């Protein structure tokens, strides 16, 4: 069965510090991996995706994610967090010929 896991319900980081939001996947075939962000009372917004190519994917708002095949991970990173990055982050994934599966999300809290 296809699955993605976000092992942390919440991540806390101080503004200006680097942030990492973790995601691991288990899919058949080549993985399709995404990151979406949900701000309060809003729908989800696309940040970035990995299909093939470079393992380091750059996305919106200064975020990037690193695809690691050996660790089956696709962690989201940003060098310097902002308070405005505080939101709920989702890492959906899919394998070849399968539907997108969402995890439970990770709440990022950035404080001054």
């Amino acid at each position: 069965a296809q699955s993605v896991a976000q092992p942390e319900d919440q991540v806390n980081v101080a503004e200006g510090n680097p942030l990492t939001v973790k995601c691991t996947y288990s899919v058949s075939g080549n993985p399709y991996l995404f990151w979406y962000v949900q701000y309060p009372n809003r729908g989800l917004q696309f940040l970035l995706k990995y299909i093939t190519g470079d393992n380091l994917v750059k996305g919106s708002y200064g975020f990037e994610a690193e695809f690691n095949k050996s660790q089956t991970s696709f962690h989201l990173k940003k060098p310097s967090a902002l308070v405005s990055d505080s939101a709920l982050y989702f890492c959906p994934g899919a394998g070849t010929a399968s539907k997108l599966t969402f995890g439970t999300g990770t709440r990022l809290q950035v404080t001054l």
Partner: protein
Amino acid sequence: DVKVTQSSRYLVKRTGEKVFLECVQDMDHENMFWYRQDPGLGLRLIYFSYDVKMKEKGDIPEGYSVSREKKERFSLILESASTNQTSMYLCASSLQRSVGEKLFFGSGTQLSVL
């Protein structure tokens, strides 16, 4: 930019009522999706559609049906609402039929069934 509009932001209904949730996208996208979002469960796919008058079941279709009479509109129907259908409902669309396409989401409808 693509706009996905859900007709209601908040909705309160009674048990047993028939409920319609409407979703419209303005960018001629082929695919449309309905998800529900619950704390601790993330997003779960209810139904999706790759074409007009076409529908496919997602992971949790029980208690729901859908209608896609026009390309831009995808409706979610709760035939007889129950309290366990209280949830945030999110509509999404994507340009083409590929799992690699990014999704564009509406702002969501928070449905409460009393």
